[in-house]
């Protein structure tokens, strides 16, 4: 080959290779591998967004937590708050042709509650209301053992997506590889740790009204390409080999959004945000004064700057912005004040010799842990370590693999650990602060708090509920058992040609109303 021909050939090769994404097809750079595509048995939060495109739920929750009709046209709640009657749409069929009706909903609830199902997130979402009965062909009645205010909002989480009863029957343990829902996209294929492909459901005509989209999705095909390596995900997106990318690392988010070339979608993941429970059963944080000193010693804004290029909004209270009861005024509770922190330690009987704090021959030492595979948790933990060292704490940092990290925190062997928790209802707090809960990593309970959590759950009036959660946040912050760090956002970027990507309340990317400009 002559040297003159080479550039031309390369250019030709470049040309035919760059046009791989067809006009109406979307490649999404996805950050995590999936355990299953069965909404009931998944234990991974990041499977949720994919599920919400395959499965519909009875209700749709808007990003600001308005509950809207989806598969249920309307519903009524009995005066005692124990019975929910849903009137279902009559024109819906599953991707496999099975009609959607009350019997299908009942089959789903029976599957979720089944002994051998190994249901994870979904069973918890139904709470004490896991009994469904078909009271008409298109009318289903849920009965609760006790009043359960979170039910309606939680019904809209993708983990309660309706699956085809025929598929449940047919596939058994392999259901997660053959997801059949009623959503805007049908499942095509799943190559483990590589990609998940969905195609448009041409019969779709029941999107939630607030999305303002009639008929089937405009996009023909979506490929979720699994790219756990953040750098590769960014490069894939920058080179145009994907049109959407989730979990953009902070530093890249800063530079890419500054270029003005992309659409920014900071998807709000509701719940408790990113936070670190403070272990109240372990020396020296069993002393409330030491815990308060930690609260004063950590500067959220600087922490985010250090750990994640400052791209996330800080949080000062356990409940995410926008959630029922979120306390706007919590910011002033523990301003960054290292001097105050030191005086609290002195008040608690600790003596400072210029390098270390000691009390009764013991040093002021804390253990901060993080999951080893998660870069942002590690960076946050190390930033906390830095803040505490600054005022003289002997702060140790240890990275652990997920199972070991879980074990250690359940056993109460760690002082502080950055974590996240996702939920659409403030009742999510109960997983972290009721006695005997798996996630009670503060290892702290309080009778008033326990009462309030139960009250919040059984109060149906919005205003009164908000007041209860306000009080709960006060108690948690006054006792310094949780260090709020930042809002939980999935920093998603899309090419300017893609419009209409949205998300359902809780933070689940939804492509049903999206389209691609020619």
């Amino acid at each position, binding site marked *: 080959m002559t040297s003159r021909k080479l550039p031309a050939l*390369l250019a030709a090769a470049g040309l035919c290779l760059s046009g791989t994404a067809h006009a109406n097809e979307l490649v999404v750079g996805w950050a995590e*591998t999936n355990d299953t595509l069965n909404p009931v048995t998944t234990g991974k939060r990041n499977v949720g967004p994919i599920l919400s495109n395959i499965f519909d739920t009875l209700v749709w929750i808007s990003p600001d937590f308005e509950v809207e009709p989806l598969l249920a046209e309307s519903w009524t709640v009995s005066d005692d708050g124990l019975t929910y009657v849903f009137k279902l749409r009559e024109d819906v069929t599953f991707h496999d042709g099975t009609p959607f009706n009350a019997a299908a909903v009942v089959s789903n609830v029976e599957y979720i509650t089944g002994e051998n199902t190994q249901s*994870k997130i979904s*069973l918890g979402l139904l709470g004490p209301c896991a009994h469904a009965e078909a009271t008409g062909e298109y009318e289903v009645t849920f009965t609760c053992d006790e009043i359960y205010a979170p039910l309606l909002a939680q019904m809209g989480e993708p983990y309660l997506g309706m699956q085809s009863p025929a598929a449940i029957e047919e596939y058994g343990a392999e259901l997660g590889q053959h997801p059949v829902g009623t959503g805007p996209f049908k499942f095509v294929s799943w*190559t483990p740790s590589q990609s998940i492909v969905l195609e448009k459901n041409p019969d779709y005509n029941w999107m939630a009204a607030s999305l303002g989209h009639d008929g089937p999705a405009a996009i023909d095909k979506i490929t979720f390409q699994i790219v756990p390596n953040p750098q590769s995900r960014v490069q894939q997106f920058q080179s145009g080999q994907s049109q959407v990318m989730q979990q953009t690392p902070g530093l890249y988010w800063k530079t890419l959004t500054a270029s003005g070339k992309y659409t920014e979608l900071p998807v709000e993941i509701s719940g408790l945000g990113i936070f670190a429970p403070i272990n109240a059963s372990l020396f020296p944080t069993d002393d409330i004064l030491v815990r308060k000193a930690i609260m004063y010693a950590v500067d959220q804004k600087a922490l985010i700057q250090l750990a994640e290029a400052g791209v996330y909004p800080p949080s000062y209270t356990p409940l995410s912005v926008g959630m029922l009861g979120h306390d706007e005024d919590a910011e002033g509770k523990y301003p960054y004040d290292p001097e105050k922190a030191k005086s609290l330690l002195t008040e608690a009987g600790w003596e400072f010799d210029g390098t270390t704090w000691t009390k009764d021959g013991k040093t002021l030492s804390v253990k901060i842990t993080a999951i080893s595979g998660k870069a942002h948790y590690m960076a946050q933990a190390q930033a906390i370590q830095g803040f505490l060292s600054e005022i003289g704490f002997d702060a140790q940092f240890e990275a652990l693999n997920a199972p070991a990290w879980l074990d250690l925190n359940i056993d109460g062997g760690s002082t502080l650990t950055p974590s996240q928790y996702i939920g659409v209802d403030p009742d999510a707090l109960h997983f972290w602060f009721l006695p005997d809960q798996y996630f009670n990593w503060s290892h702290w309970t309080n009778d008033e708090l326990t009462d309030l959590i139960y009250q919040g759950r059984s109060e149906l009036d919005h205003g009164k509920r908000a007041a209860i959660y306000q009080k709960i946040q006060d108690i948690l912050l006054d006792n310094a058992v949780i260090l709020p760090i930042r809002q939980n956002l999935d920093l998603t970027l899309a090419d300017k040609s893609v419009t209409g990507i949205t998300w359902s309340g809780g933070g689940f990317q939804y492509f049903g109303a999206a389209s691609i400009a020619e």
Partner: protein
Amino acid sequence: MLSYVAGRLAAIVALAFGISGLVFLMLRLIPGDPVMALLGTQAANPEVVERLRRQLGLDESMASQYVTWLGNLFRGDFGYSYGQQRPVSELIAANFPATLQLTVCALFLSVLLGLAIGIVAALKRNRAADTLGMGLALALMSIPSFWLGLLLILLFAVTWPIFDVVGGTGFKGVVLPAVTLALGTVGFNARFIRSSVLSAQTQKHVITARAKGLSRATVFLRHVLRNSLLPILTVVGIQVGNLLSGTVVVETVFSRPGLGRLLVDAILSKDYLTVQAVVLIIAVIYAGANFVVDLCYPLLDPRIARR
């Protein structure tokens, strides 16, 4: 020869046993309860925890777990990965071809480039080409593959988008990962081949061949190269192991499916059965590759077969 083959095969089986037992034990000595990790918030319910523990067979003694696992293995059943909610055999079937493709392509590239650089360096000994070649070899050996991978992606997938950033198993997906993986071992191969060729060149029979008037090319191909290939073959066998372990990094950088990534994910989530199966397979491949190398010796050196 037959008893030699039988002996080697027996050694591989013994090795597989030893490794499987060791991995089995090590996994269970690392802290962390896989059942709790699998269940998430449902772990608050002790009944559910016990049920899953029973289903996973983790309520039994370690010895009986091992015997059960071995028994299933002989029936070709690797067990079920509760973390990925699929049979382990399915996971391996989905990931193995990608790793095989990557390793074979990288091995081919690495040997080919190593031969080219090594032979040129040996023939032009102590001249500019030699210095250049050996300098290049040293440089390639010193570059960490994760950095090289990112650089190649930046150049050939972002700046000039000739290849895919995210490596699939198609042509556009395999080139960059294979080059990344290969370049790390090219340097070693080149240096080794150079010294091997040099030592073969000084053998007496080579001098004789030259003296009796054979052409340079004939001497080199028939007498030098063939004799210098024997030690290279040994190195190639060892290299299969290096390349297999290198796939862990390369598969992660290029987000390729493969055994390396499967293994890392499984270790991090304490997916016992998957880790056991993958480690076993890698060990057998490694031993198998060296076995094949051993079988090749007689082809290059007939004296070995006669022994």
